[in-house]
């Protein structure tokens, strides 16, 4: 872990603060209390004078808001069709969807940790972070926890998160000639970003394992980076 604080390390944890992201320590400048409008760096953006800026509106405002599932389905469908035009194979398509999900996961992680407030804790163990994904992340996105979490019997570094009926795939029928495709690669990208952002670098992929009862059943295969297992092995057992 020590190399995280080494300025020479190329690895920079994600942070919304641009000064932290670029790896440069910023001198703290005291904010003047008399300032009414936020002066964010040298922003040239115009703001509507009659409205609150996004910095003034409460971040939890939309926490429990709902929109129609149809709206999501139509947007997701366009995302898939757009990605499909740019790629040649199913793997590439899944990669594109993963990337789109990834950018969402990065934002979501910050948002969820912010909302946990004082009770937020930094997960240091593999099981802890997997629970966070299966419970907190899943509940927030889909209104229910994941249906299962299993450790691979064959590979020490692999875990499986199970969703019997992924909400993102509800209305999708994959054509027979593309049967390997699972559009929940998008969700895999979200999970991957949450794990990466929590310093559990991993690779996450979505796989269809249809059963009689759950024809859309999906397994997210989580393969942790070697460094995660190394760290885990030196952590105290408690």
């Amino acid at each position, binding site marked *: 872990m020590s190399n995280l604080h080494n300025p020479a390390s190329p690895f920079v944890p994600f942070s919304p603060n641009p000064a932290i992201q670029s790896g440069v320590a910023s001198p703290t400048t005291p904010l003047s209390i008399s300032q009414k409008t936020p002066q964010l760096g040298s922003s040239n953006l115009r703001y509507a004078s009659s409205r609150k800026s996004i910095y003034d509106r409460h971040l939890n405002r939309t926490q429990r808001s709902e929109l129609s599932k*149809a709206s999501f*389905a*139509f947007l*997701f*469908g*366009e995302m*898939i*069709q757009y990605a*499909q035009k740019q790629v040649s194979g199913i793997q590439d398509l899944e990669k594109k969807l993963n990337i789109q999900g990834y950018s969402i996961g990065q934002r979501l992680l910050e948002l969820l940790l912010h909302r946990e407030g004082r009770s937020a804790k930094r997960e240091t163990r593999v099981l802890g972070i997997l629970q966070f994904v299966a419970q907190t992340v899943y509940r927030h996105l889909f209104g229910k926890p994941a249906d299962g979490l299993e450790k691979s019997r064959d590979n020490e570094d692999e875990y499986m998160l199970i969703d019997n009926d992924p909400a993102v795939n*509800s*209305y*999708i*029928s*994959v*054509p027979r000639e*593309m049967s390997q495709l699972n559009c929940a690669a998008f969700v895999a990208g979200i999970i991957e970003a949450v794990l990466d952002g929590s310093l559990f670098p991993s690779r996450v992929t979505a796989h269809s394992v249809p059963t009689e009862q759950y*024809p859309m059943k999906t397994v997210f295969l989580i393969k942790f980076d070697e460094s995660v297992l190394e760290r885990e092995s030196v952590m105290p057992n408690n």
Partner: protein
Amino acid sequence: MVILSILILNKAGGLIYQRDFNEGLKKLSSNDYLVLAGTFHGVHAITSRISPVPGSGGLEVLESDQFRMQCFQTLTGTKFLVFAEPHQPNIDVVCRRVYELYADYVMKNPFYQIEMPIRCESFDRHLMAYIKPKQ
């Protein structure tokens, strides 16, 4: 309620879906189904023109000793034809529900191309799950 068969016609009268749910109707060749769809589309258009009532919606019900056919045309011009046993009431409820399933599992499927034949496994599955318990 016994539903014998469901057909879906696109705006141009092309057959984009056909499925039997029960014995009772003669099986036709796929070409004959296309002809049937096209013919019905034309007859439907003519009936709306010759109707003495202004603004008539065209042929809605066709009844014989063996079956009752109900046509439900959406505002976009898509037609749902439901064949059932004679004297079945409330077929319009079935039509509307099938339309909803179509909106969900056909229209929201990014791999479905509009106006083309419907090959959507989820649509088949949900249609079956809706029709079967009624039999």
